[in-house]
C-alpha cells in the first residue's frame, strides 16, 4: 500500500515538476520577446514611445526605480534589463562596473538633432561614433513652495533650512540632490570634496534633519502634501511644479540665487541585452519629436531634441520656466555631473538621515 502511494506520489511529482518546468520556460520565452526597460517611475508611459508600440504591440515591459543609485545596485546584483534610464552623473559609474555596451549613433536616426551640449558630454564618449548613453531628458531640481503659505521668501536654497517652517518641509532622498545643495550652502564643491569639506556638508545636513517631515523620492506623496498644505515647501523636479500648477494649487518653482540643479538623463544599453534590435527601435521611437514634445508639455521637462522644442509655443515654455535651449538654462544653474566621492557622500548622507 505504502509502496503504491510512493510510486504514485513519485509519478505525480515528476508530472508536477515537468509542468512547472514547462510553465517556467514559457514565461522565460515570453519575457525574451519583450524589451525589458528599467526606468524612473513616471517614465514608462506609452505616450513616450507610441511608434515603438505601433510596430511591436505590447512589446515593452517596464520595471521602476525611485532613485538611480538604487537602480545601480540592483543591476550590479544581477538584474538584467535591456535598457536602463540613469542620469548622466551615473554613467561613468555603471561603465566602470562593466555593465554597459556602447550604442552606435549611426543607428539613432535623430542623433543629429540632439543638443550638442548633451551629445558632447565627456562620460558619454565611447569612441568610433559610439556613445554609452543617448540623452533623452533634462530638467531642474529646485524648491517648490506654496505662495500663500510662504510669503515672498528670499530666492535661496536656505528656505529648506528655515526654522519657522519646521516639520512642514520635505527633501529628495537622493545623493545627487540634497547633499549637493547642502554642499553649495556650505561653500563646498559638491563634485569633488576633501574629508574635512565633507564634514562641513554633513554638518549642514544635520542642521536640516530636524526640520524635515521626510526624506523621500515619492513625488506623488510630496505633491499631495503640498496641495493639502501639510508641506509648505519641498525640493522637487519640474514635473511636480507643472502638475500642481495644472491643478490650480498656488505654488512657485523657485530660482535660488545659488542656482537650480540641472540634470540630464538618457538611455543606456546593458552589456547582456537580449533584445538589441528592439532596444534601438525603442530609443529611436523615444527620440521622435512628438515624444519629446509630449515630455515637455505633460511633465515640463526638457527634451534632448531641438526639434521637439519647435512644436511648443514660446508662451507655453515661459509658463513652464523652460528655455528652448539648454545652454541658456545652464548659464544660471548647476549641472549635476559625476560626484567623485559619490559612495562616501552616500554613506555620510545615510548616517545623517538616521540621526548620526
Amino acid at each position, binding site marked *: 500500500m505504502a*509502496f503504491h502511494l*510512493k510510486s504514485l506520489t513519485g509519478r505525480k511529482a515528476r508530472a508536477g515538476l515537468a509542468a512547472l518546468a514547462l510553465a517556467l520556460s514559457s514565461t522565460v520565452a515570453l519575457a525574451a520577446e519583450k524589451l525589458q526597460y528599467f526606468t524612473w517611475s513616471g517614465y514608462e508611459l506609452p505616450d513616450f514611445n507610441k511608434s515603438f508600440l505601433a510596430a511591436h504591440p505590447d512589446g515593452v515591459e517596464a520595471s521602476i526605480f525611485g532613485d538611480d*543609485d538604487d537602480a545601480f545596485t540592483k543591476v*550590479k546584483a544581477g538584474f538584467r534589463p535591456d535598457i536602463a534610464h540613469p542620469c548622466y552623473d551615473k554613467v561613468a559609474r555603471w561603465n566602470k562596473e562593466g555593465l554597459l555596451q556602447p550604442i552606435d549613433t549611426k543607428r539613432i536616426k535623430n542623433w543629429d538633432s540632439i543638443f550638442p551640449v548633451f551629445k558632447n558630454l565627456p562620460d558619454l564618449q565611447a569612441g568610433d561614433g559610439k556613445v554609452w548613453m543617448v540623452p533623452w531628458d533634462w530638467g531642474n531640481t529646485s524648491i517648490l513652495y506654496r505662495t500663500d503659505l510662504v510669503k515672498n521668501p528670499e530666492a535661496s536654497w536656505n528656505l529648506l533650512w528655515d526654522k519657522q517652517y519646521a516639520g512642514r518641509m520635505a527633501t529628495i532622498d537622493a545623493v545627487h540632490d540634497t547633499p549637493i545643495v547642502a554642499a553649495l550652502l556650505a561653500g563646498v564643491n559638491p563634485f569633488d570634496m576633501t574629508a574635512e569639506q565633507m564634514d562641513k556638508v554633513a554638518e549642514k545636513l544635520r542642521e536640516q534633519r*530636524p526640520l524635515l517631515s521626510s*526624506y523621500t523620492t515619492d513625488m506623488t506623496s510630496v505633491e499631495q502634501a503640498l496641495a493639502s498644505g501639510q508641506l509648505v515647501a519641498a525640493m522637487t523636479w519640474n514635473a511636480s511644479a507643472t502638475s500642481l500648477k495644472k491643478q490650480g494649487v498656488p505654488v512657485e518653482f523657485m530660482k535660488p540665487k545659488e542656482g537650480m540643479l540641472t540634470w540630464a538623463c538618457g538611455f543606456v544599453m546593458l552589456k547582456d541585452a537580449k533584445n538589441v534590435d528592439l532596444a534601438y527601435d525603442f530609443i529611436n521611437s523615444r527620440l521622435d519629436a512628438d515624444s519629446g514634445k509630449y515630455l515637455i508639455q505633460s511633465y515640463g521637462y526638457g527634451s534632448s531634441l531641438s526639434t521637439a522644442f519647435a512644436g511648443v509655443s514660446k508662451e507655453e515654455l515661459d509658463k513652464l520656466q523652460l528655455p528652448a535651449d539648454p545652454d541658456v538654462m545652464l548659464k544660471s544653474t548647476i549641472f549635476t555631473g559625476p560626484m567623485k566621492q559619490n559612495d562616501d557622500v*552616500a554613506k555620510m548622507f*545615510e548616517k545623517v538621515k538616521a*540621526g*548620526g
Partner: protein
Amino acid sequence: MSAIIAARTPEARSSSGFRATMLLPGALVTFLLILFALGLVLFLAFRGNDGSLLGVGLTVENFATVATDPLYWTVTLRSLVIAGLVTLATVVTAYPVAYYLAFHAGHRRGLLLFLVTLPFWTSYLLRVFAWKIVLAYNGVLNSALIESGIWSEPTLAFLNTPAAVVVTLAHAYAPFAILPIYVALDTIPKSLLEAASDLGARPFTAFRRVVLPNSMPGVLAAALVVFVPTVGDYVTPAMVGGPASTMIGTLIQSQFGKANDWPFGAALSVCVMLVILLVVLVARGADRRFGSRT
C-alpha cells in the same frame, strides 16, 4: 519473534521513506535558501568593501565600526523600543479579542476568526496607505477632530512620527497576536474555571489565577511573533515614520542600496540578528519560569 521483525521491517522502511520524502521540501528550503543565505551574509560581513559584489579580503573592520559608532547603538535601541511598544500594543489589544473569541463568541466564532484574518486579503502596502489616509494632515482623524470642535487647526503630530509607525505596525500584526493567544485560551480545560468558581473565586480572581497563567505561553509566543519581524522593518518607517523614526532595517537596506556597501550592511544584519537572539533567549527564559503550565 523473527517473524514479527520480518513482518515489520518493510513497513518501517517504507514509512521512513515516506517521512524522508515529506521532509525533503522543508530540508531543501532550510539548507539551500535559509542556511546558505545566512552563511553568505556571515561571509560578507567579514569582507572589505571595494564596490564589488562579494567584497575583498578578510576583516573585522565592519564590526569595529558598528561597535564604536554610537549611531548604530542609538538606531538599534530605537528599533528595539519601537518594536517593544508595537509588541505591547499588539498583545494588550489582542488579548481581549482572543478572550472573547475563546469564551464568549459562541456560534459567531467562525465568522469572527474570518474577520480577524480579513486584513491579510489586501497587500501590506495598502494597509499602510490606509493609515496614511487616516493620519494625514487633511486626513480622517484631523478632519474628525476639527469637525467636532476639539481642534481648530489640523495638526502635523500624527503622520511622520514614531507613534504612527507603532500604530501602523500594531494594526498589521494584530492577527499574529490574536491567533496564538486564542489557541492558548481555547485549550484551557473549562473544568478549571468551574473548579475555580466552586472554590469561591470571583470572576476576576479566576481570570488572574487561572486563565492568565494558563494563557501565558500563547502571550509569549504572540509577543515573539510580533517583536522579531518588527525590529527589522523598514517599509513602515519609510512610509509613515519621518526622519525621527529611522529603524535599523532602514540603515541595512540603504547599505545594500544607495550607500553601496554590502559588507557593512551584512555586518549590521549579523549584529541585529545577535541582538534579537539575545531577546529571544531572555523571552525563552521567562517562558520557562513563568509560562509553563505544569
